[in-house]
């Protein structure tokens, strides 16, 4: 069992399975297909669990993100990013929590805060967990997030 102390950007508790991106997480590219086609017959069948649609993300492409503890360095890409994250949360298609090794970026922070203020069930978001966290965590690890930003692996 390993513990890492980060900063709670949106405080909250959760337990989920880890899903790890070692490169910048492109929010729009990752969620776009699941959000756009998820409800369309035929097209949506492969996005039932918010499968990542970013072909440039070798760690995540095609993997389900729904209800996972998404571990990442920062988000990158379009300035629609925060809005997309908010939509995913409001539609029940988001990860359980976001765990950043670095300081949160402005687009992810927007999504985190919008979800916290404008939805009924905020998504815990912790940043500044350090590169050691990203080096230690593996896909499928059990992750527990505490209110104070402590993240436990295992």
């Amino acid at each position, binding site marked *: 069992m390993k513990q890492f102390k980060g900063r709670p950007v949106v405080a909250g508790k959760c337990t989920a399975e880890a899903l790890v991106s070692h490169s910048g997480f492109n929010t729009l590219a990752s969620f776009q297909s699941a959000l756009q086609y998820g*409800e369309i017959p035929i097209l949506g069948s492969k996005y039932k669990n918010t499968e990542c649609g970013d072909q440039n993300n070798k760690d995540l492409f095609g993997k389900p993100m729904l209800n996972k503890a998404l571990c990442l360095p920062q988000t990158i890409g379009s*300035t629609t990013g925060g809005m997309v994250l908010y939509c995913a949360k409001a539609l029940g298609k988001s990860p359980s929590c976001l765990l950043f090794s670095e300081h949160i*970026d402005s687009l992810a922070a927007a999504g985190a805060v919008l979800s916290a203020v404008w939805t009924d069930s905020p998504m815990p978001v912790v940043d500044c967990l350090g590169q050691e966290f990203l080096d230690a965590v593996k896909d499928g690890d059990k992750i527990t997030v505490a209110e104070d930003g402590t993240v436990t692996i295992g």
Partner: protein
Amino acid sequence: MNENFNYKMELTEEQAAILHGSKGETMAKVMKTLVLYGDAFGAPKMVPVTSKMGHLVTSFGLGVMKPVYELMDTLIDGGAISGQKFSVDPKPLDKNVPSDFLKNFVFNKFMYSVQDEYDAQLKKLGLVDSKAYTCTCYMDEVGNKPNKGDVLSWAESSAVVYANSVLGAKCNRNSGIIELFGSIVGFVPYFGLLTEEGRKATWIVEVKTTKKPEAQILGSAIGMKVMEDVPFVKGLDKWIGTELDGDTCAYLKDFGAATASNGAVGLYHIENLTPEAVEQGESIIADGAKTYVIDDAELERVYKNYPVMWADKNATPKLCFVGCPHLSLAQLKEWTDNVANGLKKNGLSKVSIPTVFTAAPGVIEQFNKTPYAAKLKATGVVLSYICPLMYMNNPLAKKMPVITNSNKLRTYTTSRYYKSEEILAIITKGVK
């Protein structure tokens, strides 16, 4: 309202009153969002938005983005309307752009099914007018051009990086919705690119090429290297001059869009050219700045490494987009001349594959008053106000072999990037 909400930044009386409900519950939630957003970056205070107009990134009425439109309704119903007029990114649809029955069916039935409703919401929230749909709102023909030093609440990465770098305005890389919130309350958290320290360059880029670098590739190389940092570019003035004239601004527009989409650059300084680099010289470079040298080989390496996302890499292109970000009036005229001359030279009258040039409605209006309009029409090129990126973001367009000279379009879609001269050769000579 928000009485037990703990926040770190100092608020003025007016700001605190809004937070506590002096302007209603919805406005209080808008303010709370901005305060939490600023707290995440250690912002010590909120500062007034001083630009005349805002700019929003979300222009599409995608049926699936229901929560966004519900939020817009909440804002409108709660009287949380933008305190300043705003422009917005380009529309996703234009009937003049080549399409087919199936694409139109998917676009209208499944994707942009609430476009009209969202356009109506934008109007209520403060959209300037029906012509204000473009990513290049700062063009003279559009009229949303901030002054140097203005504090903005904008999103759209290519517009933010242009406003910061070329115009000397101050704006963070805000997300959609957050930018609208800033325009609604009239304040934004003070951090990042709004601060003197945040505008210092942490990278020195030395351009050592033997010819003028392609703007879109140079920007891409720098973006991928520095990511969200601020670069100070040396040696580029040798190729693009020291005056911010039309050609240079158009170059910087395309360069900046590539830095922002291939990385996350929100501000760059060009030695002897952009306002803060001219005023402050190398004193704007932070201690310990890293160095990146770009020569011909480095640009070629970057170019050759772009993945080709087509299923059949040798497919014949079915569509070409030029104008992401939207073309300036001068660029439109130049492309018109180049295409017409290229076709004449090759004994052709029309472009060999369907080609769409995109520009702001205001720019198109001015262009159509010139003789160039008839000249371009004669070549078969379609001129549109559409957002190519939104056109490409559907399962049918994704399968099409589309070519472009836009590095932003390449990054976010399956379109294939070619240099401008290659694009010109392809559309005027035949298929490569």
